[in-house]
């Protein structure tokens, strides 16, 4: 009985405790699993891809012209950022010139081997685009870099504007930069936007390049040669699609578009084959087959300049004074000027002669569309182009081309321009081949020749009439002045460029 009571007492004691406990607590919390935090010690810092060693070849430095850096279009970079490229260009004999706001692009491009525009954010004018197109068409090399991290500001509108600027410039070359950046979340160098690129085509620009890294790069749409592209997992931020996105493209032989600037800068140029690519770009920029024209006047030469004079030239005080001034002009370009007794292939030439040209001068006139009235030598007959084969055009041409017999002494016939009087004009004739440039100065008398040399000295053909390889500077009482009326007779129907193998004219 006592035990029973005791149990009841214990029961009565526990009931409220158990009741309350059960009321509130229906179990015991046991963590469902072994709680784990990341093994921070096992995480490793990713290391950059080792750079490929590049042999530093001793190069022969030869004077090959200037490279113009565009700074006139609110370009979003500092020259110090591209020192590696500049060193490569200088190693190849380039003179680095900047094109600043307010300057004349045509003048700056005179004698230039390449024009580089990096991250421009201000529109190119129509004239500038035309001048750059002409420059590239003449064999000048054009490099355009549009980096998505280089806009005038971080505003979306600025980024769009910077793309528009470069795309306007590159429109004729069928190259379009997209307003995006490329990324790869699977295989990248340290960050998803640091993408690997591999060559698509064999080209001088991708020689010895196996893999490069671009650091936030715009992708490029191009109908031309796609040189370097990402892999199948490299996508465009614009659409999250892509694969094999091109980021370096070449149009024709002379226009190179690159979607990243950072790979040129320190320390990123040291990664993978970036440095090799920079060397190749340097070589590309300096190796254009630049066709020298009067647009480059007076920066026509890249080699030491030799002066050859015709038989009737007298080296008097006035002439020597002008030649000395010309020497000083070219000395500023590190070019020497000296008299030659005979032609030397190692020299570019300035040839001085009187009209009609003598035998010394005569051989240099081959291929130039000029015919002298008293000349008994070879001059080309104007050739109609394929487009000018219509009967009417042919008749028109034939009717007005003078024959050797009809061309009077003292008169000069220039293909495409017509007849002019030798006493009224001085002539600059330009011949440019792959390895040398020759400038012929022809005048009616020695005094006029001295005046022509002064035009070289002052460095401008302004006021002279220039047609392809011939420039005419008219003389009147006040000196040389512009030709008042172009002597264009067959402007629409004649090919103005000298034909490659002009038929000889026989007596």
């Amino acid at each position, binding site marked *: 009985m006592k035990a029973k*009571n005791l149990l*009841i*007492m*214990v029961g*009565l*004691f*526990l*009931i*409220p*405790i158990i*009741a*309350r*406990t059960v*009321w*509130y*607590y*229906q*179990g*015991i*919390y046991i*963590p*469902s699993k072994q*709680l*784990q*935090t*990341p*093994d*921070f010690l096992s*995480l*490793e*810092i*990713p*290391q*950059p891809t080792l750079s490929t060693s590049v042999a530093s070849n001793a190069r022969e430095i030869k004077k090959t012209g200037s490279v113009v850096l565009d700074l006139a279009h609110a370009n979003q970079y500092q020259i110090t950022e591209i020192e590696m490229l500049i060193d490569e260009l200088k190693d190849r004999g380039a003179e680095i010139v900047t094109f600043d706001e307010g300057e004349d692009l045509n003048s700056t491009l005179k004698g230039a081997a390449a024009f580089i525009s990096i991250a421009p954010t201000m529109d190119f004018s129509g004239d500038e685009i035309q001048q750059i197109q002409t420059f590239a068409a003449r064999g000048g090399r054009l490099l355009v870099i549009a980096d998505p991290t280089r806009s005038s500001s*971080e*505003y*979306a509108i600025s980024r769009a504007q910077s793309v528009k600027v470069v795309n306007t410039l590159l429109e004729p070359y069928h190259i379009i930069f997209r307003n995006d950046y490329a990324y790869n*979340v*699977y295989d990248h160098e*340290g*960050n*998803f936007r*640091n993408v690997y690129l591999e060559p698509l085509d064999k080209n001088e620009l991708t020689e010895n390049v196996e893999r490069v890294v671009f650091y936030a790069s715009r992708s490029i749409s191009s109908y031309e040669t796609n040189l370097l592209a990402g892999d199948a997992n490299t996508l465009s931020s614009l659409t999250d699609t892509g694969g094999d996105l091109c980021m370096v493209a070449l149009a024709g032989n002379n226009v190179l578009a690159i979607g990243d600037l950072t790979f040129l800068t320190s*320390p*990123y140029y040291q990664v993978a084959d970036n440095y090799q690519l920079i060397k190749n770009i340097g070589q590309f920029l300096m190796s254009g087959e630049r066709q020298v024209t009067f647009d480059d006047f007076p920066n026509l030469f890249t080699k030491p300049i030799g002066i050859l004079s015709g038989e009737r030239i007298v080296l008097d005080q006035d002439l020597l004074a002008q030649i000395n001034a010309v020497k000083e002009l070219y000395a500023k370009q590190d070019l020497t000027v000296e008299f030659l007794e005979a032609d030397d292939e190692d020299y570019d030439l300035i040839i001085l002669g009187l009209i009609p040209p003598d035998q010394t001068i005569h051989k240099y006139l081959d291929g130039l569309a000029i015919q002298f009235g008293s000349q008994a030598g070879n001059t080309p007959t104007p050739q109609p182009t394929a487009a000018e084969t219509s009967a009417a055009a042919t008749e028109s041409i034939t009717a007005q081309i003078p024959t050797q017999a009809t061309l009077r002494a003292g008169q000069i016939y220039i293909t495409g321009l017509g007849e002019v009087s030798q006493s009224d004009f001085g002539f600059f004739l330009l011949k440019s081949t792959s390895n040398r440039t020759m400038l012929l100065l022809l005048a009616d008398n020695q005094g006029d020749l001295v005046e022509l040399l002064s035009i070289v000295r002052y460095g401008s053909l302004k006021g002279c009439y220039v047609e392809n390889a011939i420039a005419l500077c008219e003389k009147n009482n006040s000196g040389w002045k512009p030709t008042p009326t172009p002597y264009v007779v067959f402007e629409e129907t004649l090919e103005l460029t000298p034909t490659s193998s002009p038929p000889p004219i026989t007596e």
Partner: protein
Amino acid sequence: MKKNSQSSKTKNDPRILIFLLPLVLGILIASLVPRPVIGSIHIRDEIDTKMSIRVMKEIEYARSHPEIKAVVLILDSPGGTINDTELIYLELMKLRETKPVVAMVEGLSASGSFYLAMGTDYIISNPSARIGNVGVIGTLPSSPIVLEETISTGPYKLFGNQREGYTRYIELIKESFYQVVKLGRENKLKLSKEEVLRGELYPASEAAKAGLIDEVGPQSSAVAKAAQLAHIAHYRIINISEALAGETSDEKSSFFILDENGASTGYPREPGVYLLYIPDYGSEIP
């Protein structure tokens, strides 16, 4: 007469007292059994030092108060600094050794805030909330320079690392973030590593389908889930920061750059490396 006598006998029977006494004693002792409490901790702003100090105090409070049987972590934050996020995360993990923690995403759980959600047992989100943005954001420090008037003893004494080293550091933090997500979601995660690290923000429903969260629902569901995990009923809910009133500072945070109207621009004042989502990135960097 006999009946009256019996009644009087019962009233005065000491045996009844003997039975009542343990009952009363039991009731008294039962009253000492605490009513369970679910504590709520709120992270509704950027995660900076001030925030981490407050939250860690609240976690410590929850841990040291036995009546708090579970915690609901209410999140509506774009994230913040790496250090402060990691500090809170590690304290949450420690708390979970004794008490379950349920995350309730109210509006935004991005980057560092999502990192904290990975330190909880269960994640519930408002239907319209946005979740994810796994990744790191940072600005590179200045390029190394040398100054005439400043003398230091090594090339990196002034800058800590090579400039490029910060890119590597950010990548390291990214990897660590992914590890946190992987451990936090385990086999519930339906996204690949690359997909997680794209840094996307997902609507709650999509986040649930991707396994980034467990459920879409109201705050009461989060509380109920916390109670379920803690095996408690008839609990009460307290806001731990109110319990700690007076111990935390009301000083206004200076984490973000403010515009001329005093509104936050979303950009951190100090350059550095962050687990942060900047809502309008790129449109206007002050």
